[in-house]
């Protein structure tokens, strides 16, 4: 007998951040979200029904049609589109497109119910586990990937065999929260989700903020197209992420931590659930974590398909069951985060870096980078490249070394025309600007940024205007609708990059696009609307001839 509405709602009332898990249970039980179920949720959790309805429609994957949960959804992200995603979509009965679902190293993922299938080279669909990172070149030291290829690493015993949970034990037994924060400070670790804020400083701000109750959130809503590093970390080294979260709790004084996972990683959810249960039954997590008399509880929460929920304040609204618009800042989450508590929101890679830093010391981590740059960064590399995958590079590594030496260069007989930076959010780099090193100062000097570390490669066979069109379509689809410049601007730029939109003369076309770029960058309320115009800006910078012939063709 499947559980009744009343049973599910009664259970939800005992949980923190109950709305999303409750909606997922109903979605899975019924195969869609019926009006009757939503009315029961509204009543049970005391949410106005119009608000609940509006919020449900915000998420891509909550289906309001019978059978919607089981219907196939095909990734039509930039890389999958290059590999024939649209043909696959047309050939699959009842299939609908979904934005980049974070498996660009092994296209094309198809989601059916709670299972991910892969259609390799347009062939039959098969279930496959997330690819492991390719081995690092000889002599290159890694941080988060150092043990990821060890056998049984995803189990508790396998994790412990590589020194796992020693950092947490040390922090609880012999470190003060302040000295733990100091180690992180000195390591030079900054946020690996893209914003690059110093992690130690964030933790100290939370620790010092007014209010007894603190919260830790692991941002695993890896929605940036071309980024799939967090998936690899969570799938192959889940305990490292949990240990990092537990250390964040120790440092900030939080007793509750949430891991907010993107919808498109159902197998990851299962693995994380198993890992959390293992750590709880071993007494590492729980009311008396590792015998410290401190409580550390980790709660897993699954998103429902919304890129903007990777933005930390949207994520917090989503966790709280509110409409996931970004919040106005200040106040920042470090003082007013989850339910108003001081909250540390950290990316998966950032948190996974913490245990090795605590074990090996701040100096060890700093020295992993080249020159003045501290530490490493995982780059998700995909597109027209011989060996796509996740590479943990020392910060400061030349991009060309990664592309040509580590990843085998472009396909044979081809050359690299352009790459994206920060997934899509950093726009394109091309021509001489490919001569950068992988670190923020070098890439920012070219008007882009490294961000979460997604790099998609496009060789000389690709139409870059079409690539830019796909990119802008993504931003328009994912714009939340809160602020005018982004809501309207992403739509207008998409129209101008598609066939038959915008002014007929190049002069008028450029005039409009430049104005849209500038005003969106300067006045949008959050990173989405500020970053989207980097696509058009860099397209105009590197490919003015392509733009001119696009306007001549479509105008």
């Amino acid at each position: 007998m499947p559980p009744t509405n009343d049973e599910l709602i009664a259970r939800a009332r005992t949980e923190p951040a109950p709305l999303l898990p409750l909606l997922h249970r109903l979605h899975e039980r019924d195969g869609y979200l019926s009006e009757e179920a939503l009315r029961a949720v509204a009543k049970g959790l005391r949410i106005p029904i119009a608000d609940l309805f509006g919020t449900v429609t915000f998420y891509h994957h909550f289906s309001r049609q019978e059978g919607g949960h089981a219907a196939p959804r095909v990734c039509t992200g930039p890389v999958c589109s290059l590999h024939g995603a649209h043909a696959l979509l047309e050939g699959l009965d009842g299939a609908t497109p979904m934005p980049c679902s974070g498996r660009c190293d092994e296209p094309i993922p198809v989601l059916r119910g709670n299972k991910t299938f892969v259609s390799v080279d347009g062939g039959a669909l098969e279930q496959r586990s997330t690819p492991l990172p390719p081995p690092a070149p000889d002599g290159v030291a890694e941080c988060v990937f150092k043990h990821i290829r060890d056998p049984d690493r995803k189990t508790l015993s396998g994790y412990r065999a590589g020194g796992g949970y020693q950092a947490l034990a040390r922090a609880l037994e012999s470190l003060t929260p302040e000295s733990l924060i100091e180690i992180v400070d000195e390591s030079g670790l900054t946020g690996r989700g893209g914003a690059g804020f110093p992690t130690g400083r964030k933790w100290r701000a939370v620790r010092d903020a007014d209010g007894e109750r603190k919260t830790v959130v692991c941002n695993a809503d890896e929605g940036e197209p071309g980024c799939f590093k967090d998936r690899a970390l969570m799938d192959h080294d889940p305990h490292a992420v949990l240990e990092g979260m537990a250390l964040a709790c120790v440092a900030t004084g939080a007793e509750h931590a949430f891991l907010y996972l993107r919808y498109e990683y159902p197998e990851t959810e299962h693995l994380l659930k198993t890992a959390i249960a293992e750590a709880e039954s071993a007494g590492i997590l729980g009311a008396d974590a590792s015998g410290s008399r401190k409580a550390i509880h980790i709660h897993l929460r699954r998103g429902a398909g919304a890129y903007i929920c990777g933005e930390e304040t949207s994520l917090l609204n989503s966790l709280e069951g509110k409409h996931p618009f970004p919040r106005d800042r200040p106040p920042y989450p470090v003082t007013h985060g989850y339910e108003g508590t001081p909250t540390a929101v950290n990316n998966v890679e950032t948190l996974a870096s913490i245990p090795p830093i605590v074990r090996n010391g701040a100096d060890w981590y700093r020295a992993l980078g080249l020159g003045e740059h501290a530490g490493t960064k995982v780059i998700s590399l995909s597109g027209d490249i011989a060996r796509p995958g996740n590479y943990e590079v020392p910060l400061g590594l030349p991009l060309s070394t990664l592309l040509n030496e580590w990843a085998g260069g472009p396909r044979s007989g081809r050359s690299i025309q352009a790459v994206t930076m920060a997934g899509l959010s950093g726009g394109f780099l091309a021509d001489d600007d490919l001569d950068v090193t992988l670190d923020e100062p070098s890439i920012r000097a070219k008007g882009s940024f490294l961000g979460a570390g997604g790099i998609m490669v496009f060789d000389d066979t690709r139409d870059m205007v079409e690539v830019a069109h796909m990119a802008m379509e993504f931003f328009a689809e994912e714009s939340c609708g809160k602020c005018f410049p982004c809501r309207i601007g992403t739509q207008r730029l998409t129209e101008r990059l598609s066939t038959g939109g915008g002014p007929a003369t190049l002069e008028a076309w450029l005039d409009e696009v430049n104005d849209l770029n500038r005003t969106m960058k300067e006045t949008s309320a959050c990173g989405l609307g500020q970053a989207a115009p980097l696509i058009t800006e860099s397209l105009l910078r590197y490919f003015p001839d392509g733009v001119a012939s696009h306007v001549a063709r479509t105008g």
Partner: protein
Amino acid sequence: MTSDSNPRTIVLDGETVAFERGETLFEIAQRHRRDVPSLCYDDRLDPFGGCRLCIVQLEGARKPVASCTTKAEPGMRVTTHNATLDMHRRVILEMVASENRDVDVDELSGYASQEMSTLLDRYDARSGRFDGAHSGTSRPDDGNPFILRDYDNCISCYRCVRVCAEQEGDYAISVMNRGFDTQITTEFGGFLEDSSCTFCGQCVQTCPTGALGDIKALRAKDVPEPVEKTRSVCPYCGVGCAVDILSKGDKVVGIQPAMDGPANEGALCVKGQFAFDFVHHPDRLKTPFVRNDHGQLVPASWDEALDKAAAGLLEAVNEHGRHSLYAVASGRAPNEAGYLMQKFVRAGLGTSYIDNCSRA
């Protein structure tokens, strides 16, 4: 006043001005008549930061900031108008103009209905640039008699949704979908009548584009005379909501809540907002009526009518005792009239059977 004598000051366009704790830059700029534009702002609601028209330049900040969501801090140096800010404002307004069917709506649509078109003219933003898809979907199928849902003119400022939640506490409407596909919706996309809407009309009055319109007032759209506004007090219950009566010639054509009404601050209920047709209704009573010997109602003077009523009351008391009477005071009467009524019933008629229609 200088920053030396009072640390709670900012420099606004070169002028040192004082501020209250918690005040936003927008509030300060408004107080000093800087005329910073906005489309998502309603001073009764929490600042939203959506339209981005109220951007100002803050010294030391990389980008302009939305003044409505930025709280003043001592020593801030703020510029409200310069060529860059005005260029961004114009581009945003050109974008807004491009998503709508048309921008000129009748002023009878609602209190704030001219805000967008006024700003478009002020910033010369009717350029036709950024032409493309339109964003809203009107609901002509919603046949309610009060609120026009003409979302073809919606600009997604969410003032309607916010006023419904924050002022009326109704939560009848919300935001559906996202990005350019955003729509204002009720639960499950149904009609207002089937939602928790009370038809108070506050969404209509705060809408800056006329996407929500006052259907009853718009009946007089084609009447040629100009609209006149007369400040008055709502004739219904005793709360005393201030209203502006809209008239054309000698006809009342609509009601708008007074945003500065001390009792209502822009709020009305469905009766005060929409139920004014009695004014010019042919069935409206203009004199007292009494029944003649044949039982027919005929017009009478007030003296005749009061005599008749008094005689009737006395007859009932004499025949059935004083407790055979029961009086209900009208909720439309103010406290003073309610007091007189109970005095009349208790001391005059000698019974305690007195009640009020709000309770009865």
